[in-house]
């Protein structure tokens, strides 16, 4: 099997269409598809002040690289924002890579840590907290990304979510009967624009994890940081394995899941658009659905009072 266009050894093969691509053709295919997603969904516009939520992992580094390389509009401002959860032997290594990458590419990098912002690192929190690590970590990370983006004057947050991440979330919301959460998903998040919410956009929405890894490898952006050590038992990790098994047997399953989801997304947005008004947290002024936001509840009950578990 050779590259469909160049007749040389391929680096990627699409089994469903029986097409193989060489390095040059794969890079071209990948960049065109990402830029097409950005154009189609108008992910970045004139005068945007964007921050890329970066971690030093392959997904966020790839999108950081692509945006920094291809956005030629000088009215668009670009910087990176990273959260240091404090996961020993994992985040410290990936952030080191990110620092070097940003320095080399002249990208402003803002790093905020759980330790400084909340008083404890994730490792310290997990010494007493016995709930699911990803639940508390996800809430605290999203909280900081939104809050710090506003402080930086950013109007849009770019994330490295790919096809695999999104198909997992869609599947999880179906199986948990939480379709309301799916209504906020898609290449652009949120049902409606709210002054307190920084809009999140996902240029890698249609790229599989394998495609992103291939691109990262070919561009020298692939880092050797394994999975998060706290991720192994999560529900998401199990859904990921399940979808990967399905994809191996029936290639295109993840694409099918996302395509059919995008078809019903306008209906979901319509159904849930009259959800209760977004409130402001009494403690921190961040947006939330109740009187006090989840992050503040975690900080009070888990970080300050060392509760073993909380039911939010």
């Amino acid at each position, binding site marked *: 099997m050779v590259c469909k266009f160049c007749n040389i050894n*391929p*680096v990627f*093969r699409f089994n469903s269409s029986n097409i193989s691509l060489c390095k040059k053709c794969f890079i071209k295919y990948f960049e065109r598809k990402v830029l097409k997603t950005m154009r189609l969904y108008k992910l970045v516009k004139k005068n945007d002040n964007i921050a890329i939520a970066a971690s030093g992992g392959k997904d966020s580094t790839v999108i950081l690289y692509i945006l920094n390389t291809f956005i030629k509009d000088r009215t668009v401002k670009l910087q990176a924002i990273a959260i240091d959860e404090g996961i020993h032997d994992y985040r410290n290594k990936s952030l080191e890579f990110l620092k070097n990458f940003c320095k080399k590419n002249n990208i402003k990098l803002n790093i905020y840590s759980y330790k400084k912002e909340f008083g404890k690192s994730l490792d310290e929190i997990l010494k007493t907290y016995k709930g699911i690590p990803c639940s508390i970590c996800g809430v605290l990370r999203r909280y900081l990304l939104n809050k710090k983006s506003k402080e930086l004057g950013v109007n849009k947050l770019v994330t490295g979510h790919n096809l695999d991440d999104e198909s997992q979330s869609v599947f999880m919301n179906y199986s948990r009967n939480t379709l309301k959460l799916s209504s906020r998903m898609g290449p652009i998040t949120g049902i409606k624009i709210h002054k307190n919410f920084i809009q999140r956009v996902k240029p890698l929405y249609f790229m599989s994890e*394998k495609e992103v890894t291939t691109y990262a490898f070919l561009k020298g952006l692939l880092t050797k940081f*394994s999975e998060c050590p706290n*991720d192994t038992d999560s529900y998401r990790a199990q859904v990921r394995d399940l979808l*990967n098994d399905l994809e191996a047997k029936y290639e295109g399953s993840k694409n099918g899941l996302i395509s059919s989801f995008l078809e019903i997304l306008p209906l979901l947005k319509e159904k849930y658009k009259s959800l209760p008004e977004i409130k402001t947290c009494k403690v921190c002024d961040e947006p939330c659905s109740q009187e006090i936001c989840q992050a503040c509840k975690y900080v009070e009950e888990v970080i300050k009072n060392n509760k073993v578990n909380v039911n939010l």
Partner: protein
Amino acid sequence: MKIYKEPKIKVYIEKTDEYKELSLKSLKEIMKELKINPTTVIITNNGELITEDAEIKISDDICFLSVISGG
């Protein structure tokens, strides 16, 4: 009398950080034997990216790099 030695190939699996020695066969068969899901890895041979239908030989340096990261 010459004793026939079955040709073996050594492969590296990044996810588990281990080397495995197997009898020489196609990449697809190796992955099946090691229970490696093709959607979860990219494959390199001597540092160059290859596809799972590429031909391999004993002297090759095959690595299965995990595509799953983050969390």
